[in-house]
C-alpha cells in the first residue's frame, strides 16, 4: 500500500513540533528554519496551516532537474533529492508550482520532503492528528466517516 501525508489544518495549533521533528530527523538539530514542512499562521482568521511537498506523480521538480538529482523512491512514492548529484542550480525551485523545494545556502543544495524513507517524523510528532500518514488511495476516508456519522448515525 502506498501512503501519503495527509494534512487537516483545522486540527493544527501551530505548536511547530512537526518542524522540529523534521529538522532533527534530517540534520540532528532543532531548527525550524531547516524544516521541510512549514506551518503558516493567518492572524486575521486564526487559521494555522501546515504545508509540505505532496509528492506529485509527474513531479515538476524531477522533470526539470538537468542532472537527474531528484529520484523516485519506489517503495513509498517520495521524490528524493540526491545531495551528491544536486548542483544547486535551483531550477526545481522554479518548476515546483507549490514552493515546496527550497535551496539551502549553507549546503549549496536543494532540499524537500522525502517522507523520511516511509516513516515521516512530522506525523509522529504531531500531537493533534493534523498531520497523518495514511493510505494514499484513501486520504478522504476520515472525512467521509465524519459525514457518514452526520448523515446516518442518528439514534432513532
Amino acid at each position, binding site marked *: 500500500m502506498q501512503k501519503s501525508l495527509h494534512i487537516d489544518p*483545522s486540527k493544527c*495549533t*501551530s*505548536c*511547530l*513540533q512537526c518542524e*522540529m*521533528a523534521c*529538522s*532533527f530527523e534530517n*540534520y*540532528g*538539530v*532543532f*531548527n*525550524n*528554519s*531547516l524544516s521541510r514542512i512549514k506551518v503558516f499562521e493567518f*492572524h*486575521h*482568521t*486564526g487559521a*494555522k496551516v501546515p504545508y509540505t511537498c505532496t509528492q506529485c506523480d509527474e513531479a515538476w521538480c524531477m522533470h526539470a532537474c538537468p542532472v537527474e538529482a531528484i529520484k523516485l523512491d519506489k517503495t513509498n512514492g517520495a521524490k528524493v533529492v540526491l545531495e551528491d548529484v544536486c548542483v544547486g542550480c535551483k531550477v526545481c525551485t522554479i518548476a515546483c508550482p507549490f514552493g515546496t523545494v527550497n535551496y539551502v545556502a549553507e549546503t549549496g543544495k536543494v532540499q524537500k520532503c522525502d517522507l523520511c524513507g516511509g516513516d515521516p517524523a512530522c506525523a509522529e*510528532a504531531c*500531537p*493533534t492528528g493534523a498531520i497523518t500518514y495514511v493510505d494514499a488511495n484513501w486520504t478522504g476516508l476520515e472525512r467521509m466517516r465524519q459525514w457518514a456519522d452526520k448523515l446516518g448515525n442518528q439514534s432513532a
Partner: protein
Amino acid sequence: MAWTRKILRVNLTDRTCTSEPLNMEWARDYLGQRGLATKYLASEIDPKVDPLSPDNKIIWATGPLTGTMASTGGRYSVVTKGPLTGAIACSNSGGYFGAELKFAGWDMVIIEGRASSPVYLSIENGKAELRDASHLWGKTVWETEGQIKAEHQDPQVRVSCIGRAGENGVLYAGIINDLHRAAGRSGVGAVAGSKNLKAIAVRGTLGVGNIANPKEFMKVTFEKKKILKENAVTGQGLPTYGTQVLMNVINEIGAMPTRNHKDVQFEGARKISAEAMHEPRETDGKAQLVNNQACFGCTIACGRISKIDATHFSVVNSPKYWGASGGLEYEAAWALGCANGVDDIEALQYANMLCNEDGFDPISYGATIGAVMELYEMGVLTKEEIGIEAPFGSAKALTYMTEITARSEGFGKVIGLGSKRLCEKYGHPELSMSVKGQEFPAYDARGVQGMGLTYATSNRGACHLRSYTISSEVLGIPVKTDPLTTEGKPALVKAFQDATAVVDSSGLCVFTTFAWALSDIQPQLQAACEGDWSMEKLDLMGERIWNLERQFNNDAGFTRKDDDLPPRLKTEGAKVGPAKGMVSGIDKMIPEYYELRGWDKEGRLTAETVARLGL
C-alpha cells in the same frame, strides 16, 4: 549542554553590543531563565536602585529546554527590578520569541543604561545592532511588529516589544511578543520604556543542536508528551476551554473576588465563562472563540483565539478589531469582568485586545478599575474626575477607561499608576487589593487559604504563578487539601514555590505541572544537559532561587510588614459560599512559613540558610 553558552550584553548609553561567555558555574546552580537571570541581576545591580533609572538593568533570558522538542519548550523570562513593586520582577512569556532568540545563538540578553533616543535591538544570529526607533515610538505593539517585519523584509522575524503603555510609564506595562503573548506582570514594559528601548527583533537560523544525549532526549520527551495528552486537565480541559475552564469552578467554591473583593461570588460569571465563549451569539450566530493556539513546542495548546462581535458598541466603528485576536484567559476575564462586576463578554474581549495592543497587564489594570469603581460608588471619585460615570458593572466605563489608559490620557495617567498609588492618592490605601503594590489575581484568599500565603510571600508581589496551590486546594493535584484550612499550607506553599522556581528556569511552562511532577521534568533536563541533574539537586536549586529573590527584596528594603494582605481580607468575612464568614488566616501562617524557610522573625535569611544554599 543545551545552553548556547553565550550572553549578549547591550549598553544603551554607549550603544554597544558585546558577546560574552555564559557563567556555566552559575548555570549549574541556577539553570536558566528566571533563576539564572536573577543571579545575574542580583550580582550586577544595587537592589536599592530606582527601577526606572539607567542604573537598573533588564534581562531577556531563555532556559536550557527553550527551543527544543520538550513540550512547551518555548518560554523566556524578562527579569529586572520592577517599578510597580520595587521588588524583583520576573515575567514569563510563551509564543515563539524565546525559541527564536535561542536559535540565534543566545541564552540571554542583558540590557544596561539608557539610550538618548528611541532604539530597538536587531539580532540576526551572531549579528546584533541597535537601530533607530524614533519612527516606532508612539506606535502600538501590533503596529511595531508589522513595521519591523516590513522593514526587515522578513515575515519570520520575531518581535518582543512595548506598546504605548510601556513608553508612557504605565507601572504595570508588559512586554508583548507575537502580538498577544505577554511577559505581562510587574511593569517590565515600563522599565524597557524608561530605557528608550522599543523592541527586540530576532531572527535565528542556527537552531539548538547541542543536546547532551539526543536519543534519550527524544525518547523521554515523547513519553512525557503522552502523559500531557492523557491527563484530563492538559489533554482535554485546557485545549478545549483554556484557563477559562476555571471561571465556573472558582465561582462555585466562593473564591471569586468580585467588585474589588467586596463579594466572593459573581452572579455574571456564567456569562463570561469558557462555556459562554463557545456559545453562538444572537447577533451573528458565531461563537466568540475561533480556535485554540499553542505556543512554541506546546502540545497542550491552551491559548485562545477569538473574534469580537463586530456590532458591539466598543468596536462597531473600528474594523481593525474585527479579525481574530488573542482571546480571554481566565485571569484577564476575571480582572476585566468579576473585579469590576462587568458581565459583558464582548466588552471584556475589547479591553483584553487593548491590553495586548498597547502592552499592559490586564490583571493589575482590571483590579485597579475595581478600586476606581469602589471609590466612585463611595463618592470619592466623580464623573468629572474620571471622565465617565463609573459604577460597578458598567461596561461603558470599563472600555472608556481602558482606552484612556492605553493612551495615557487624562485620568488614564492615574489608572496607570496601579491601585496602590491610586488609592493612596484619594486617601483610601486600604482599598488597594494588592501585596507589595501588585494587584491580586483571580482567587480569593478567604476561600482558598493557601493562596493568601502565596500572595503575601510572592517575591514579585501578589501573584498566582509563584505557587499555584489551587492545583492542590481545588483541583486535587497532586493531592487534595482543604482550601478552608490554614493547616499544612505553609509547607504546601513552600513546596510549590520551590518546584515552580525550577520549572520557570528550565524553559518549560508551569501549566505542564497539572500533569507532570518535577520528577517528570528531571529526566528531560538530565538528557538535555551535561552533568548531574538529580531530584535532590533540583529541589535544592528551587529553594536557592526562591531565597536569592528574597534576599534581593530584603536588600531592597522589604520586611515582615510587606508580607501581608489588605485589611479587607483579614477583617471582612466572605459573604456567601463555603467560606462564608471566614477571613484569611495569614497572620497564623506567616511565622510557620518563615520557620520552614529558615528565616528569622523579620523574614530575613538566617546565616545558616545562606550557607546551606550556597548564596
